[in-house]
């Protein structure tokens, strides 16, 4: 017995330059927000960009983008809709606001199915919004999307970093490329995270401060582009780490 979907995945991703998975050991650290706004920032820079929300049971990037009412077009596969020039794919197109309780094997199946049938076409970047933690989907992304590079998000909290350390250890054991670590929701000038990241021999990509104006901008891309969150992604992360976009 052979699953035919597996053999087509590589071809589906062939015309994508870089795949960046936004991941963390911890929930609620800002992965989905970062993934969405990073994808917008890359689009704004003129890169052909896709955003793939694979937090299948709890998708949220559509809230950031205001994109719940879109849907893919079918033409010998699923063609992701575009929002502000960004190609976007999420399970929300098929489930609306219903709960979708999925066990590990089901999650793997959704990932394989969507990788096998989504026609991303030519992209410079595909940004993947990961669910929190180290479960089936993390291992499956590593298994099926071999060119993925990981960008890890943490908050300043020791508790968040405790989980990030484990994730970094796992990714290193699996010899997966790690772009580095971002410290999000920064509120003071502690350098705890930066020191810890460096002592593990990984790259500290920079910090993004807590942005109290963010909530109001959710769902409206024009407002999002004006937030300090966006500005910090452009100025403190992308400008200072040219290897991300090179």
């Amino acid at each position: 017995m052979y699953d035919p979907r597996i053999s087509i995945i590589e071809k589906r991703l062939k015309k994508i330059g870089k795949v960046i998975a936004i991941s963390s050991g911890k929930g609620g650290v800002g992965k989905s927000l970062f993934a969405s706004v990073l994808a917008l920032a890359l689009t704004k820079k003129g890169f052909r960009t896709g955003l793939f929300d694979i937090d299948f049971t709890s998708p949220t990037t559509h809230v950031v983008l205001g994109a719940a009412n879109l849907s893919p077009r079918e033409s010998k596969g699923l063609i992701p809709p575009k929002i502000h020039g960004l190609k976007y794919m999420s399970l929300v197109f098929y489930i609306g606001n219903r709960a979708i309780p999925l066990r590990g094997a089901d999650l793997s199946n959704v990932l394989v199915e969507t990788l096998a049938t989504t026609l991303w076409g030519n992209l410079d970047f595909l940004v993947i919004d990961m669910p929190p933690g180290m479960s089936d989907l993390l291992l499956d992304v590593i298994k099926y999307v071999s060119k993925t590079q990981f960008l890890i998000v943490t908050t300043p909290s020791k508790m968040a970093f405790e989980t990030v350390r484990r994730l970094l250890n796992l990714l290193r054991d699996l010899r997966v490329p790690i772009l580095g670590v971002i410290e999000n929701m920064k509120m003071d000038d502690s350098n705890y995270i930066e020191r810890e990241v460096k002592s593990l021999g990984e790259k500290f990509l920079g910090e993004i401060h807590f942005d109290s104006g963010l909530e109001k901008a959710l769902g409206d891309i024009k407002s999002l582009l004006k937030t300090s969150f966006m500005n910090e992604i452009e100025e403190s992360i992308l400008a200072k780490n040219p290897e991300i976009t090179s």
Partner: protein
Amino acid sequence: MHEWSLAEAIISAVFSIAEKENLREVKEVHLRLGELQQIEVDILKFALLEMKTGKLSNAKFIIRTVRAKFKCRACNHAWTFREMRIPGDIRESIHFIPEVAHAYIKCPECGSPDFDVIHGRGLWITSVKGVK
């Protein structure tokens, strides 16, 4: 059409199986289609015939459909996809991603959404026959 992207996947998989098994020519490809994915067999067959080339040019595709059956994890009740009345737009979503069934289907006995698809989910290649 979803059938076309799956057909493309089948062709590419059969090529790599033929490669691995050193087949010069592929004669028969046996496929098992889960009912839950609601693949149009005629379209799938047409797409396969359109796409087959090289050592697959003379291959026959033999397709067997398997009924979709569910089993509740809460009360063990088992039931079939066929006996459910499901509106067209939801069927279409399930067609694209069969797991989406978990957002719409509940155990008809106890109402739990915690069920397994015990068979008939999607597409499998069961065997590839040819000459070495």
